[in-house]
């Protein structure tokens, strides 16, 4: 909820840094994909498919990388 409100108020770099931190902190943080989706809807102007869904794809790739990293980091394996 806080991240959703931050989408409107905070600078974009702060929002993305916080989303990435949350994706590391929480397992299966699918909300990052929704944040990318809403961000594209609000701020992109482009008519091309890739540009108009840029942050959605960026969020998906970030999520995948973080999921793989979480599997390999000792911090997470010890917590399980």
């Amino acid at each position, binding site marked *: 909820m806080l991240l959703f*409100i931050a989408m*409107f*108020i905070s*600078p*974009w*770099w702060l929002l993305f840094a916080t989303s990435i931190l949350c994706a590391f902190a929480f397992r*299966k943080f*699918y909300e990052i*994909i*929704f944040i990318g*989706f*809403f961000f*594209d*809807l*609000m*701020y*992109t*102007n*482009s008519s091309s498919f890739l*540009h108009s*869904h840029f942050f*959605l*794809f960026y969020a*998906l790739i970030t*999520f*995948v990388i973080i*999921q*793989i990293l*979480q*599997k390999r980091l000792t911090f997470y*394996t010890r917590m399980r």
Partner: protein
Amino acid sequence: MNYLLKSREKKDSVRKSISVAVIITVILILFSLIFRNITSRILFAIGDPLWNGNNFISKLIRSSFEGFFNSVELSNRIMTYEVKEAEWNVKDQEISVLQNRISEMENIMNRASTSKVVIAGVLKIPPAIPFDTLLIDAGSKNGIAFGQKVYASQAFLMGEISETFPDTAKVKLYSTSGEKFQVRLGASSTTYEAVGRGGGEFSVSAPRDAKIKVGDLALFPGLGGDTAGVVAYVEEDPAKIFEEVYVRFPIPFSLLDTVFIKIGY
């Protein structure tokens, strides 16, 4: 000797979560293709009071804490802005003289402009947004429509309305990365293709003998001759036939509080 079997659970769990993420992405893309307008309207309806409130609080905090800043730093900043403002005023005056002459010619040729102007406040602007996009607090209720031209001042044309909502609108700046348009540059007013680079800047490839210098105005083609920007830097390379001219929007985004939208003809 017994060895513990490797657990397959972790690998399967990661694959499962990635598959779910991809499915969610596909569903969201389909959703945006079908319900884009409705979803954007809802988001902008939620965002409008938040952006207005944010701007109000930012101005309040800025005005409250200005007294704590180093007075020397403040006076330096004021001086820099005053110098820049003086430069813009001179450019504005030159452009006004030219535009008056154009208006006289239009009247003679019976083509006088009858457009109306709507003033709108800026809700969000780069660098708060990563793209060259503006959000303004005027929408379809104020007569704003797709494709209308947006000016930063009387002379500087900065973009067009790309999306409208009842109370807000989105402006696409011409300096958006990859955006192509025509400008006139140089003493001979030759038309070149400009390519947006983002951050209020665009570039033009011009022949070396075009004699374009820093401070020249880049104008949009047409009788009105709206100004696109001011040449900030010319990259010359004796080995190349063309030189790269970088044109920048003269007003810093941080100083842009209001914009003017021309509606009608």
